[in-house]
């Protein structure tokens, strides 16, 4: 009996390992994704091309422009000579901001005590626009207090800011736990649901069902290889985060792996549930895409903080499994806390898995009966 099951599991392993293309992608995705999140997706402002409109042209405005462009944030791409030329320049997308200095800048600054500057930004990218404005304003204000007379005000007390858990504000700290959730979801839930649906679609499921293997054995044999794959992958991601991006593992490694294992089981039970409901691979795919991938990326707090979402979506995120996984990962890895602060998440994950398994058993029986 046991050897029959072992043979079946072996067959499934062979199935997966023979398909080198899929295998490469399964291990390639997390690596590429981590590299992208680590290096490409930044909100950093650096060398942004700006246009300069300076009808004043006096020594003070020149000095200010030099100060702005030597800050490393802005590159003077375009010298604009008339107010009319501002719009087409922004429209063409060549520059993101126009620094427009008012005429008689130096005179107004010293005689009237106030001069003005317009920062015209291309707000089609709203975050970039407000960041650019903030950066430029800070430089201009500093310049004004350097050049102005009698403005050497001292701040009466100091503010010490301490960034907890992630001193350098690295984005990878957010993305490693999220990428793990995404990959584990992809491998376990999606792959299992598709491979079971495939047997159904091609009619081989019927063949398997009339074989001496019990339905439970068939399902277990199907999911067994994926557990191994998923576990190997999560270790690769952790290693990569640790070695390349210096992501710390401050808490207990055993607890961390236990949480990963729980999530893999949860994703598997979800995958099995999907496969009992759908009939074809295409539907299984779209189902997983819409019901699993999108929420995992969007509503789990992976990329976007849950607290910033509208209330309805916040409530909705409670039923998204990866949300609890990511929260537990962050608490263990980055905060270094123990089971006292993650037992709630673990309990939720266990009850979700049980629920999915019960429903799929019921569905499976219905179909047979």
């Amino acid at each position, binding site marked *: 009996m046991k050897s029959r099951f072992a043979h079946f599991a072996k067959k499934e392993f062979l199935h997966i390992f023979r398909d080198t293309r899929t295998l490469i992608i399964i291990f390639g995705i997390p690596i590429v994704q981590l590299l992208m999140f680590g290096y490409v997706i930044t909100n950093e402002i650096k060398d942004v091309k700006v246009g300069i409109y300076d009808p004043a042209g006096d020594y003070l405005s020149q000095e200010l422009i030099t100060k702005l462009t030597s800050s490393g944030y802005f590159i003077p791409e375009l010298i604009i000579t008339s107010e009319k030329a501002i719009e087409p320049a922004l429209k063409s997308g060549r520059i993101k901001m126009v620094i427009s200095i008012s005429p008689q800048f130096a005179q107004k600054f010293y005689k009237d005590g106030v001069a003005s500057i317009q920062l*015209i930004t291309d707000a*089609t990218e709203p975050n*970039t626009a*407000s960041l650019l404005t903030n950066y430029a304003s800070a430089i201009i204000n500093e310049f004004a207090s350097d050049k102005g007379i009698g403005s050497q005000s001292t701040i009466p007390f100091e503010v010490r800011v301490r960034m907890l858990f992630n001193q350098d504000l690295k984005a990878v700290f957010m993305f490693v736990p999220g990428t793990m959730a995404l990959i584990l979801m992809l491998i376990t839930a999606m792959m299992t649901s598709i491979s079971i649906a495939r047997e159904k679609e091609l009619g081989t499921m019927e063949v398997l069902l009339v074989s001496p293997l019990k339905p439970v054995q068939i399902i277990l044999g199907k999911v067994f290889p994926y557990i191994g794959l998923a576990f190997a992958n999560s270790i690769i991601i952790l290693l990569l985060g640790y070695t390349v991006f210096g992501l710390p593992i401050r808490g207990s490694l055993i607890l961390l792996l236990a949480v990963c294992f729980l999530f893999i089981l949860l994703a598997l039970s979800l995958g099995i549930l999907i496969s009992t409901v759908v009939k074809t691979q295409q539907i299984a*795919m779209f189902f997983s895409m819409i019901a699993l991938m999108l929420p995992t990326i969007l509503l789990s707090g992976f990329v976007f903080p849950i607290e910033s979402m509208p209330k309805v979506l916040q409530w909705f995120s409670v039923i998204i499994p990866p949300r609890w996984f990511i929260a537990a990962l962050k608490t263990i890895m980055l905060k270094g806390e123990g089971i006292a602060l993650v037992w709630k998440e673990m309990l939720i994950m266990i009850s979700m898995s049980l629920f999915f398994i019960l429903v799929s058993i019921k569905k499976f029986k219905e179909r047979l009966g």
Partner: protein
Amino acid sequence: MRTILFLLQKEFLQVFRNKTMLPIIFVVPIVQLLILVNAATFEIKNVNLAIVDHDHSSLSRSLISHFEGSPLYTIVPVEQSMEHAVESINANSSDAALIIPSKFEFDTQNGDNPSIQLLINSINGAAAGLINGYSMGIISNFIMNELSISHPVGMKPSTINVVPRYWFNPELKYSHFMVPGILVILVTIIGMFLTAINLVREKEMGTMEQINVTPIKKYQFILGKLIPFWIIGLVELGFGLFIGWLIFRIPIEGNLLLLFGFAAIYLLMALGVGLFLSATATSQQQVMFMAFFFMIVFILMSGIFTPAESMPQWAQTFNKINPLYYFMKVIRMVLLKGAGLKDIVPYIFAISALALGSITLAIVKFKKTI
């Protein structure tokens, strides 16, 4: 020609008869727009702040009331010690903590330069940076209001008045930024992914062989497969645009014809890639993985969330062959800025070249495999 028409009819019938395809084509964009646009926000709307006040002076209370007065901050009650404040950050009940030392008022007035501490949970680095910025803003406001140094007469400092102007999106609405980006993803999924899946399905089911032995020529078969998705892709763009306009009031400043013209070329490119994928893969599962892999890379690099210009140089070089990058640029330029033909000519050339490339590649590969 008549053969192709019959094939087209068959394909359309198949799509419309399929009970899952239709909802996928029309429900997905609505769901995506509604959820993505609302969820995909980097804005900070609420900061839970724990305050530990060791001073209990009128000055410290005034500082606290400055934070209370800001709509952004919710003050979380904690026991008055540093340890409890850190604990509440650990348990995620607060995002940041402000620690006011004892003798704060006394030291400030005597010029002893006391220091207050601001602890911020920085696992989400971007949010931490913003929280820091907002908090410093409130503190410097507090200094201005409560502790401003009186200047001697005639020594009032000169200032520069900075006037920000946000063009094309004066209210800085994030949805105006996201909706066009999501439309690009939608069109790409249809053009690239659905096409590839559809073709491989025929292969996997063995029906491809059956068609090969009929008098239908190969190019007729391929055209019959591609044209429906080309049309569905364009319809989907129009549908998504309509939803975006209806729900999010995204502006349509430019010429829609121009946008659809560009999308038509873009879809040719996407269909080419879909065809190529289907010729390479042997099963639907494979196609899905390959498409997923490529889409993730191309979407993230295209500048959908973060500006492509601030990416490292190698990423910008890569973007020269990233079709999503061009479409992302053009759709935002046309919809939000009202860019005209002459603004997007370079992008049209680029996407046409890519379309030509992908179709050639697909045809070569397709001929080889069959």
